[in-house]
């Protein structure tokens, strides 16, 4: 290609068109894929309220791990445990005294809604009583939540503001 003096739009058109094509591709990918593949992030209460309509959909739920319910079956290598409902909203959690308090109350309160989780895999190191579990998977018609991925946080252990042994509870 010989150098031609195309300072105006015509010379640059090829780049502008190329740029737009890439932008369009990004836009298309984002709108077709993100929304279709985004998972609903729900609390146990929200999930149980919508029960039937949510069966089979890919979801993410959060809850408090009930330590006494954790069981590992060495034959099937299935991990089963129950989670109790905790509020999903950070502001609500703060208002109720912080995450570790909210998790503790969720576990000891028998009136809370529970959800049984089945996970085909080893027990994560952070899986323990009153840990916060964030679970990706789907609700099955049998009422169990089948997990593909577990994410756990232990606020009782990590970064607690005030020593609990002396804070009066």
């Amino acid at each position, binding site marked *: 290609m010989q150098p031609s003096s195309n300072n105006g739009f015509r010379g640059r058109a090829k780049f502008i068109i190329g740029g737009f094509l890439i932008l369009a*591709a990004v836009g298309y990918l984002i709108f077709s894929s*993100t929304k279709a*593949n985004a998972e609903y992030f729900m609390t146990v209460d929200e999930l149980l309220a919508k029960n039937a309509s949510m069966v089979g959909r*890919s979801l993410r739920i959060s809850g408090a791990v009930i330590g006494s319910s954790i069981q590992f079956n*060495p034959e099937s290598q299935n991990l089963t445990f129950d989670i109790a409902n905790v509020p999903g909203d*950070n502001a609500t959690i703060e208002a109720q005294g912080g995450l570790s308090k909210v998790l503790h109350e969720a576990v000891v309160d028998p009136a809370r809604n529970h959800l049984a989780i089945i996970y085909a895999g080893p027990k994560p190191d952070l899986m323990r009583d009153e840990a916060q579990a964030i679970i990706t998977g789907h609700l099955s018609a049998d009422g169990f939540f089948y997990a593909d991925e577990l994410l756990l946080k232990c606020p009782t252990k990590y*970064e607690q503001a005030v020593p609990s042994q002396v*804070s009066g509870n």
Partner: protein
Amino acid sequence: MLAQFGFGVLVVTFALALFSAGAAIFGYFSKSDRWVESARRAVQLTFPLISLSALALIYMLLSGHFDLEYVYSVTSRDMPAYLKVTALWGGQAGSLVFWSWLMSAFATAVTLRKWDRDREFLPWVVVVTAVTLAFFLALVIFFENPFVRLWQTISGEVLPQMFAPAGARLFTPSDGRGLNELLRHPGMVFHPPMLYLGFVAFVIPYAFAIAALVTGRTDDRWIRLTRRWTLVAWLFLSIGLVLGMWWAYRVLGWGGYWAWDPVEVAALMPWLVGTPFLHTVMIQEKRGMFKRLNMLLIMLTYGMVIYGTFLTRSGVFSSVHAFAQSAIGPMFFGFIGFSMAASVILLIYRWNTMKSEVSLGDTSVFSREAFFLLAALFFGAIFIICFWNVLFPLISEIVTNQKMSIGPVVYKRETALFWGGLLALMGIAPLSSWTWASFKTISRAIWKPAIPAVLVTVILLVAGMRNVIALIGLTLIAFVIAVALYEFGRGTLARARTKKENFLIALWRLAGRNRRRYGGYIIHLAMVAMAVGVIGIEVFQQQTQQTLKINQEIQISGYTLRYDSLYKFPYPDGRQVTLAELTVYKDGKSLGKLSPRYDVYPDGQPMTIPAIRSTLADDLYVVLVNWENVSEQQTPFKVYHNPLVNWMWIGSVIFVLGSLVAAWPEKTELEMSRYK
């Protein structure tokens, strides 16, 4: 005393940083060099001052001052000394002090340089670094203070406060809560500081960019001045990212290295805008093009550095990386908004002075400029996808009141095309020439390196590989390697012929004379090595989980693992270790033993440590499943076969070497500075 001292020093440094910014602005507008010099001295003082404060905190971490809330919450008596030091960045408040410390170090270092010739930049470099520093110090002083102590009031309540409440006594718990066991790993020593170094170092090129905009000297001087800073920032950021992956792979026991967790993506985003910046600045230096794009990219990089720190610090995401909830979110948001708005206004103000010296219209679509631009667009595309997917759940919650979450599938599906495009460009762009390349010249250059690439494809097809993604990826990888070697070979041969040197000397001198270019090729080779690892684990990973009795076997990908023995024993530090021994066989031959284990800490926290047999071809990754009833009759295992993953880590070593080659001062520069 030490707590008040540490805090007091931070307050003084905060005031000093504010003074410095103010004095620099005043000095610039009143054309008073004395004020500018005063601002510069003030900035230089911040590093020794914050060092005092940080060292005080480190001392208190080491000596177990549990009356400090921070020390109490991140250390305990049983932790080894090196981990007590790393606890400086193990919690939120300390990590902000650490950030400020690094920021002051870079600010001090940059103001120590000679500044004879580019003195008009100095006040604005001081302003940007000092304001950034002041922001982080403000977060520490007003929101996340690591020097807060514990006080017991008369009623017995324990309160964390900086200064004693009326009638309260200092309260010292007998032991701290300790660092989360999963963070008690040597990886913790290097991963966060490297990432932070990368983050902080990117502030320097941004500061020069702002200085260039304010002073109106928008030629490529600011780019030449910051070239090495940018490379160093990019190197540290990349090392930090790789160390995080390596740590996750070796420790977290899920057989992977990258989960597209929002916080991981947040650390990747500055890299996604910093990397094209490193490339397009070369075009501005050589051809005087892309001036506005470069400004935009470095501004975005700075914004993403602050945003990335914000995402990890604010607790807006549930993530393995995020610290607890905190009130500093709105502060970060405000600061990012302020700095981005100021940057964009400046850019618009100088828009017309930054016309390209060569019109894009005069440039061929097959020229190197065009390919660099395309690479920047691909990086931009990945960046936009990441940015949107991190933000989408937050927006969705505001708009529809429904929480959403984005998983790895979305990221992989949306970015794969552009990663592939970048691979292809790493091969094609070096073959192209400036400005006038045509389809003919480029196809003439391509066919030689294309031969080995096609050969690789044929071999893979014959060997039975039918996975399209892997085939395309590996072909492109072979092409990039061939191009890099071809470029080295061609340059070396030409030099050997004209200078009558032997081949090795010619190769050494060639790379030495053109460090940036050949360092760049080495980095490209490193990137494709890492791409080999990514393809290996993404496409070919196999896994199985089985429960065995002693002497039973697991088969995976042609390997046989025989379960030999089980040991349970206590460790001197109180851990209870459960360790299994397996022998690995392939084709009937023993390849050695693997010992996966899990340790249970006295407080009940388990830590699973996988056993990995690593070769250039594949990794065998064995997890002993943590279960309280493990016995010789019933031992659950999970085994992964991860082909080629080692090339990830090999690539990252090569890439550090390449970056060092590229960043090493050129001989001529050294000589020039000697004569100055």
